[in-house]
């Protein structure tokens, strides 16, 4: 949505995401703020945000599978897990550096997602959700059953810190910048995907697969592409998570985590990568602040109060998600856009016919 009075001379200008001077300035300021943040915020906040970046990459991937291609995936955390284990294993067993483990993790997650995406060639809609639940259930069993020399079996794997030019990233703010770089990169990739032929093909397959196939879209291929790319993002997130947490076990990658990923997408809006980013920030912020609030309340009313207050925060978040589905079905982001639209036609209530 643009302010009125803005016209384009060419298609490049129109396709660009940042169309006006102020928009460009806003982005520049935003990135600058992100860069300066570790200097201003406490270590705790920086730690939380670092992990949020990782989550964000996974949710950006989910936005491609679920948002663009319309294939419900409630097993994203399994693919994050696969990425984490592959990267951890290559790093700890073969001593690969991160710039090799990361692509390997991405590829491994992507390829294994194809296994679960294959049924998509025939199955549609929510039925597909089930094969992704299957991924979630098979994943820990698979890791446990594979020779423990590969992925450490059920014991999991320790991950040495990332090292860049021989310098190990140990400090919180180093990890922060490391992950910030990746989140910026992957956000850019996701935005790019949406505005090009491939993104349109994904949406076409979601909106009307028969029409898409008759109009030249190889639907089987694009369904798999949606799964693949979504999982590649997950794989990268997994590898990064391993480096941040420095230990991976199957305990990390539960259905519950997948559910939160989906929730973030709902809250932000599934229509665009911006929604994924926004949703991740909102849910993380809410989780953290509700939790802090809960802790404060617990401090005041005694720690046993915690047994009540913490589940209460979950309920509050769940209710919030449902409220968003009901009142802002396309996510908070569209709410913002509607507001802008209303502002633009103010003082009139409606557009003309």
């Amino acid at each position, binding site marked *: 949505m643009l302010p009125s009075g803005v016209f384009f001379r060419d298609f490049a200008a129109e396709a660009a995401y940042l169309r006006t001077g102020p928009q460009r300035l806003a982005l520049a300021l935003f990135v600058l703020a992100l860069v300066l943040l570790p200097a201003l915020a406490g270590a705790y906040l920086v730690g939380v945000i670092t992990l949020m970046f990782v989550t964000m990459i996974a949710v950006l991937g989910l936005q491609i599978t679920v948002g663009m291609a319309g294939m419900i995936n409630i097993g994203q955390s399994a693919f994050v897990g696969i990425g984490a284990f592959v990267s951890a294993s290559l790093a700890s067993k073969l001593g690969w550096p991160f710039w090799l483990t990361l692509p390997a993790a991405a590829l491994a997650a992507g390829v294994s997602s194809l296994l679960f995406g294959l049924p998509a060639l025939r199955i549609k809609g929510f039925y597909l959700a089930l094969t992704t639940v299957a991924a979630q259930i098979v994943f820990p069993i698979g890791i446990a059953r594979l020779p423990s020399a590969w992925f450490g079996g059920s014991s999991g794997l320790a991950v040495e810190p990332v090292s860049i030019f021989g310098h190990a990233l140990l400090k919180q703010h180093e990890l922060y910048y490391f992950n910030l770089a990746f989140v910026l990169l992957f956000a850019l990739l996701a935005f790019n995907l949406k505005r090009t032929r491939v993104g349109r093909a994904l949406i076409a397959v979601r909106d009307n697969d028969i029409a898409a196939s008759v109009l030249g879209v190889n639907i089987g291929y694009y369904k798999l592409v949606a799964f693949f790319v979504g999982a590649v993002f997950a794989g990268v997130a997994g590898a990064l998570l391993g480096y941040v947490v420095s230990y991976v076990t199957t305990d990390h990658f539960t259905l519950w985590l997948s559910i939160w990923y989906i929730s973030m997408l709902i809250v932000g809006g599934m229509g665009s990568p911006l929604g994924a980013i926004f949703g991740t920030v909102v849910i993380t912020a809410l989780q953290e602040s509700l939790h802090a609030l809960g802790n404060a309340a617990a401090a005041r009313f005694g720690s046993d109060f915690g047994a009540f207050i913490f589940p209460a925060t979950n309920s509050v978040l769940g209710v919030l998600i449902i409220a968003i589905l009901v009142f802002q079905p396309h996510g908070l982001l569209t709410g913002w856009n509607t507001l802008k639209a209303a502002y633009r036609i103010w003082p009139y209530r409606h*557009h003309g016919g």
Partner: protein
Amino acid sequence: MTATDVVATPATGAPLLQLKNVEVAFNGVIQVLHSVNMEVPRGKIVVFLGGNGAGKTTTLKAISSLLAIDDGAVTGGGILFDGQEIANRDPAQTVRAGIVQVLEGRKVFGHLTVEQNLRLGLHLCSDRAIAERERERCLELFPALRGLLERQAGYLSGGEMQMLLVSRALLLQPRLLLLDEPSMGLAPLLVRQIFGALARINRERGLAMLLVEQNARAALEIADHAYIIENGRIVMHGAAADMRNNEDIREFYLGLSVGREKKSFRDVKHYKRRKRWLG
């Protein structure tokens, strides 16, 4: 209020349905209808013409309270049925009051059989005898359905679906039938059959109808009144017979040029268009 109450208090004289300055908006911001005024007299057929996107379907849905599901609402004016305000009500209530809409686009219950579809039409009727009688009447009207009763409705042909839809709507015993492009995609023979049936129903039962149609010629033939809507505004209305002779209507809705002879589609020219794409 029940259906019988409504029948018991007919405000004779007043038209059955009255739209007064109706405005409709979607999502709270996109206004589609602008001050639409319209009347459907008792026992008459009113045809509603207009180009694509003019707002015909929207008007019908406003009357039958089906806008809400698309995030639309009547934002101004009033819709009176039998003197009662009915805008933005619960659709189920509207049907009970006697307004039934046949939606555009062959909305049969595809996984149910024809028989089950018909029985759903009778879901408001608690008297078995009446139900049986009504069902017979419908099968008489569309004898073709009789042989299809056990077929799954999703696999009927277009014409059969349309017959099923009209029958199903009639079984709900409406006092006002709203039809959204019933002839769309039907073969000429079937168009005639459907319109014949509509005319017959109107004659025999005195059922009032509001008919949205693109096949203006066939529609004007059986209609008593006509309204024309453009861009969400009623631009013309009058008796069907007058409309048939109106110059503009003849040109834009009947495809006839001055002097009654038919214009060939081969000869239509539009000069305003720059055809860069063809170059």
